[in-house]
């Protein structure tokens, strides 16, 4: 029986480039094929030639395997990278509005003292950042849900942080005896509306142009 692992490693030129597991798996496939052919009565040389003949271009295969086995994951390309790009743009532009001296406006919601603060210029820019994230996500093969998650990443990231921190803050305040829960709830609501809900809605608007159900098949000549 030929040493298929060595043969595959040599032909692939995989030493130090590809994981040993890849070589082992490909070798196992060829070994099984070889054994089956020999068991069916094929001469060993011919069976070996046919086993190795499954790969016409070893260099091309090596390149493909390296491409598939390395690099960023699909989730990173579809969600994290577009989301992070959107996050950086949103944070940077918010800082720019501060540098430009644009003070945030305050809007009251209802009569219970709930309000949110916003910079109109920044808020108007958010759908474009969301659109960029949705575009990058869709280009990487992201579905609608992933596009929305990527586009609203700068909103839900602090949203989760606030949600996680709120009970902890309440517990600490109760522990030290300063228990103005009404004030804490009001401040929490204001922060959630200002930082999470309103910006999240603005950024998710950017997904709308990319919401087509599917594209028609392109027929190649």
């Amino acid at each position: 029986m030929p040493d298929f692992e060595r043969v595959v490693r040599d032909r692939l030129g995989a030493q130090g480039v590809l994981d040993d597991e890849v070589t082992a798996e490909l070798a196992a496939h060829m070994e099984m094929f070889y054994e089956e052919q020999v068991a069916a009565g094929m001469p060993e040389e011919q069976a070996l030639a046919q086993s190795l003949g499954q790969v016409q271009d070893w260099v091309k295969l090596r390149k493909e395997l390296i491409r598939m086995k390395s690099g960023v994951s699909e989730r990173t390309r579809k969600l994290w990278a577009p989301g992070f790009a959107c996050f950086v743009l949103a944070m940077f532009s918010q800082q720019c509005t501060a540098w430009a001296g644009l003070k945030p406006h305050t809007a009251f919601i209802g009569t219970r003292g709930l309000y949110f603060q916003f910079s109109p210029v920044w808020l108007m820019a958010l759908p474009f950042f969301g659109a960029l994230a949705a575009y990058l996500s869709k280009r990487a093969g992201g579905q609608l849900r992933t596009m929305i998650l990527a586009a609203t990443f700068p909103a839900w990231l602090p949203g989760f942080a606030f949600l996680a921190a709120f009970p902890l803050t309440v517990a600490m305040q109760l522990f030290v005896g300063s228990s103005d829960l009404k004030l804490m709830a009001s401040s929490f609501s204001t922060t959630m509306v200002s930082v999470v809900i309103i910006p999240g809605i603005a950024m998710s608007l950017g997904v709308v142009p990319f919401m087509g159900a599917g594209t028609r098949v392109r027929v190649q000549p």
Partner: protein
Amino acid sequence: MREVDNTVKRGSAELAVLSVLEPGPMHGYEIAKRIEQRTGGVLRFDVASLYPLLYRMEKEELVSANWDESSSGRRRRYYQLTSAGKKKLKPLREQWKIFFEALNQIAGFQNA
């Protein structure tokens, strides 16, 4: 209007792999054999075509793989559908059905 996603072409090989893995885990050689058997030899995967596909599907989290001992006592890498793979199978089948129906309207397979 019913439309087919532009990933149909790429999805044909994916559909074959996802379908044969539906009943349970298999190693690469078994996947190739099963596809060949079930298509009467029309679809064949060799080492060069199968493993880049399997690794891509693994990267896309449609399948997961683990090393295990086969019945012959040898170590083999077994692939199985992930929940995302299971979810993808149904719409992929539907898209291919639509695609063949559309082709049939032009080429008239049933009248041939």
